[in-house]
């Protein structure tokens, strides 16, 4: 049973990878769905297979031979639930991104503003360039707070 399943699991992984590399957030979510299905299958395959095995229902504690290993299904059960939760969160985040930025293409999203990062503490804080101006209205967050260097001078 390993060969066909290994092939189809590999195919799921390949298609999932192709989906997450595409510029569409919904497709990325779908790609991760393919991944989780593929991983679950992978785990069950690792548990081993024989035509004669039976489901892990124990009638007599002393006769457990020939029953399916209960560990892989057990772990997969947890994995299914968790990947559902993660997928749901992922989907809602995509929805939020679309609401806030009007696009579902991750490559069209705005980048971090380098000017914003470079400003602030490093330059003005140490240099004491920004004089506390009286022109600003109270509560305006555009005015940086008085750098402590100013008080020190």
């Amino acid at each position, binding site marked *: 049973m390993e060969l066909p*399943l290994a092939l189809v699991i590999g195919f799921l992984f390949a298609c999932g990878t*192709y989906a997450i590399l595409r510029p569409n957030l*919904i497709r990325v979510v779908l790609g991760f769905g393919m991944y989780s299905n593929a991983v679950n299958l992978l785990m069950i395959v690792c548990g081993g297979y024989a035509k004669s095995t039976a489901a*892990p229902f124990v009638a007599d504690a002393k006769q457990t031979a020939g029953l399916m290993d209960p560990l892989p*299904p057990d772990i997969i*059960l947890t994995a299914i639930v968790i990947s559902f939760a993660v997928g*749901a969160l992922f989907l809602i985040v995509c929805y939020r991104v679309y609401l806030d930025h009007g696009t579902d293409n991750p490559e069209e999203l705005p980048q971090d503003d380098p000017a914003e990062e470079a400003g602030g503490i490093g330059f003005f804080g140490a240099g004491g360039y920004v004089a506390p101006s009286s022109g600003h209205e109270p509560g305006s967050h555009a005015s940086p707070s008085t750098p402590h260097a100013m008080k020190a001078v």
Partner: protein
Amino acid sequence: MTDQTHLLPWIVFVPFAAALLALWIGRWLGRRTGVLMVLAAAASFAMSVMLFVGGLGGEGISGGARYFVPWMPAMNIGLGFRGDPFGLFFALLVSGIGILVGIYSLNYIGADLRPARVGRYYAALIAFMGSMLGVALADDLMLLFVFWEITSVTSFLLIGFWYERDIARRGAMTALQVTALGGLVMMVGFIVVGVVTGTFSISELTGDPQKIQKLLDSPLALTALALILAGAFTKSAQVPFHFWLPGAMVAPTPVSTYLHAATMVKAGIFLVGRMLPVFGNHPAWTPVLVTVGLATFVLGAYQAVRETDLKGILARSTVSTLGMVMMVYGLKAADQDALQILNHAAYKGGLFLVAGIIEHAAHTRDIRKLGGLRKDMPITFWLCVLTALSMAGVPPFFGFLAKESLYGALLANAELAAHPQARWLVIGLCVLANACIFAVACRLIFGIFLGKKPADLDHVHEAAPGLWAPAAVLATLAVALGLAYPLTSWLANHLSSAGDGHLHVSLWPEHWEPLTLSALTMVLGLAIYKGRTLVAQLAHLLDKRAHGNGAQQAWDGGMALATWAGETFSARWQSGSLRWYLGAVMSALVGLVVYGLYRVGIGLAEIQVNLREMSWYGLALCVLLGMATWILATARTRLGAAITTTAVGFLVSLLFVVYRSPDILLTQILIETVSTIFFLLVVYFMPPFKREHPSPPRKLVNLGISAAVGVTITVLLLLCMSPPYRELHNLGAGYLSRSLAEGGGANAVNVIIVDIRAMDTNGEITVLVVVGLCVYGLLRARRRAA
């Protein structure tokens, strides 16, 4: 004598405790925080004296008290301190000058600053003192490295004390970059030594000739030596790292005195002194140290002659003297070290304090704008004369003894005697450098205090006793140790790293050769001073193009290059593109698996497929699943994607039937149904799929990565299931037998979930709750904003 070993760690930790205290109460004490520094320094000084005196009566000079607490025993690293005479000499120097600098600071660091800032200044200064004492007394190389880097950091804070000034920030940055980088390089050297010899303890290393021989025989010896010397050279501002010290002169004068004349810059020399017994017999030791030391000696002296900034002059002459001591170590004349270092600390510390007084009074440090201050500042004038004459090496001052002794040692040196052609070059250059120092000393006396007084210096008046008293102590030392030469000999021998020194200094020279060289130095020095206009013109011709600042420019260029490379790299690497990140992660997965298989030598040939155990409906399901996956991957509409993703999920659940797992079959069907509803709900509000037109190379890369991932996983899975690697043992067998007996349930999977792994399942439920809250929050936030 009672055992005073327990004092050893306190010498180091009392200042650190005081530094923390200064940081805390400094905001209320303000200027008076300096008292803390004086007290801490005095305590350390007193303890060092006790240990030193105790060591004299006890087991003798070579051993010294040891104190050891295991720190990282698995790596042979311990909190080891050692109070040998040379270490205690440095501790005495650091704490003794610490007292003077503390008193001076009390009167120097202005009342016009915020109290908290003054508190921070003292905290950094006291912490520096503690770390310097740590460097002096550490017996463990790693501990020494830690204190070493603390001195770099505190030095950075102190140089950048006037952080409103661009030049102060730049000076502090350069000093930190050079010294901290040097320290890191040095640490690697220590690690090499530790790995080769199996110990990080300096005393164990120096006390065991076998270990030293093992180190010297190792092919790594040269590497270790080079790395450790890099640390020493950067700290002591040796060529080609000499440029940071003049830049550090933007610090307040007490800092310059303490860090950049008396103590920190001597840490490099101290380290070389510590390493002499270990690496002294390495063939590279003498050539490298003599070359670098001599170059620094001459270059520093030459630059001191040319400099016009008062503290710059002192800084460059300090660099010069450090080079001289480096050279002395290179010549293995270790018995000279205490004499030369003590001499320099006395006169240079005094001169720095004088320079600070003058800057305070005249508001300028440019020697061209100074002059004729003798009448206005009589006490400072005499202090300057005494210390400068000691610097010049005029009898009967301490400096004369030191210079005489240096010449004597050079003439008698065995290393030099073995190379007659180099001998006179070295001695000649030393005379030249000392002559330059002599000229500098003349210039200090004549340039500041004699001659015509510029008109704008009328307001200058004598400084407060709190400022000149510390300088007076050092000046007295410079005179007294010259006159009381038997005491000087005794000190020099008992404080030296050589241990068994038989140095004999005297005001009445026994040989004519050193005296001749001294006289020659003075004549040459006077000539340089008298002909300074000519010298300046010559020098101008010499460095018309270089501006004398090539090393600084090279360093700045290197730093700019490193910054540029870092920025460019991170802009490319952290590009913010989802495709790039995911592509990189999946490629790394493939790469690591392939590399791992290659490393352990597992090939495709080992795959063995078992075709007998196969069911026809399993095979059919696989085919169907493959088709559904293909349709999902190529779906053009949202609805199509939703339907096929459900189909994939259900087909997977049917495959669980093949594997006799009814529990996950039910779970999968349930979850797949909920997922589909949820997906349809959300996707309804999202835009439809657009047709993508990826460029061919982009599509090719995507396809390549995808195919590689698919093939890798398939191969990996087939390998796992092949007999050599297949785990035949049924991992869950124990659970099967326990489920009915202990869990009271026939369904083993259920028992594991709710009984054996109950906490796990509980966590799983928590995850669902948290996700539910997050989803709610994400949806609600919009409504509020709107």
